[in-house]
């Protein structure tokens, strides 16, 4: 659990994925059953809806050591609960702005719409995002690490 090796070449980013139960989690499942390759850095937390993701969760995950966070839900209009992802969009895009304003690169926090049939897209999103975070290096600011 401790981070003995923070040297950049050995360092592997920790990425937290909040995936909605109905679309993105099923999409991730599909990526798995289709044997699509994507980096293993993502740790997935299933939520019932992307609208369930409280901005607090994102900040807490960053504080606890996440280097990147991905929130993924159904495409606009496809929400299982009709409007959950619209709410998520409002809250979380604003949080992105706020993170930027604090001087924390909001590229560490990404949202995407992935439907249950988009296994391919899920694998792509995770791959691009992981590579992006790898380039950015460890997240230290909100963790309070100097």
């Amino acid at each position, binding site marked *: *659990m*401790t*981070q003995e090796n923070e040297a950049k070449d050995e360092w592997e980013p920790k990425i937290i994925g909040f995936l909605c139960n109905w679309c993105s989690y099923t999409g991730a499942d599909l990526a798995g059953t289709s044997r699509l390759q994507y980096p293993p850095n993502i740790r997935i937390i299933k939520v019932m809806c992307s609208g369930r993701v409280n901005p607090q969760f994102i900040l807490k995950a960053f504080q*606890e*050591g996440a280097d990147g966070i991905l929130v993924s839900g159904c495409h606009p209009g496809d929400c299982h609960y009709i409007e959950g992802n619209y709410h998520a969009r409002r809250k979380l895009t604003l949080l992105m702005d706020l993170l930027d304003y604090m001087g924390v690169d909001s590229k560490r926090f990404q949202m995407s719409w992935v439907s249950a049939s988009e296994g391919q897209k899920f694998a792509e999103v995770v791959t691009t995002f992981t590579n992006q975070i790898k380039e950015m290096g460890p997240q230290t600011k909100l*963790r309070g690490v100097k």
Partner: protein
Amino acid sequence: MAKMIKKDKVRELLDKLANEKFDIFAPIGEDGITLYRKLGAETPLLNFQNSSKPPKEIFFPQTEKMFDITVENHRLVGATEPPMASNPILLFGARPCDMRAMKVLDALFTWDYTDPYYVNKRERSTVISFACTLPDMPRESCFCTSVGGATDSREGADMLWTDIGSEFVVESLTDKGGKILELGGNLFTEATPDMQAKAKQVSQEATEAISRKLDTEGVKEALEATFDNAYWDEFSARCLGCGICTLLCPTCHCFDINDLVVEGKASRERTWDSCQFTYYTIHASNHNPRPVKKHRQRNRIYHKFLYSEKNLGLLGCVGCGRCIYGCPVNIDIIEVVEGAKEVLK
């Protein structure tokens, strides 16, 4: 006997002391307020209004790690203390009221049981107090003279420096102060009788400038008699329930002990707490002995003027005025206490 040091030699003295491994804490200006911070190469403030946060945090930090929790076979099994430092600490430029407050903390932290964290730092420390001098001090909320203090109080300090313009008149009060004189060597020179007279005079002027007065006569009787009086509802009605008055108080000492796990490492730490917070006294059963603002404000006042004296033999208020100055809704401790006396009448 008194010595003096030129103001432009102060930095040189601090450099010398830093070479002697002193950790120096001194007042620094930051975004318009004064704070005691660990001193690097910068020059500390020599003229300043009293700090926003009292220097008690040097000895009793707001957050202090008490133990590392040890892990064996993925189980948390014990507590080990982090090593305690042993180098000397210099608190440079403390105000006399804040040092009188240390007497209260000294008494509390050695009350039957000795607190190792506090006492360790306290024993390592040397304190240079600055007598309050015009124009920065006293502030309009200061009332130290009403509670047994003085603008040039020597209590709790190892040295007292008095600003008389381009130099300080230096008075060493303890062996630790003598050590500083020794280390300073020729930076300290003899103070002329004129300088000493000037030092007396500026302190006198500062004392006269204190406008707030609290008559402590009869306070205890008033508080004892009015505990259940509706008066306490009245004055606490506008209280916000924030922790400013207590967190910024130089004699407040309540703390909380919590275990926390940060990125897989567990530790136990203590942090300041405030009797003004709702959750301060709440039982696990959700019963709260002090459920509303009235109880909590009352507890603060009683603690300062009644309980502290009964338990530790010292008044819990040193008249620094921070709670008056800092209160967003102008709850004025002098007014409150005088009011209680009125109620009794």
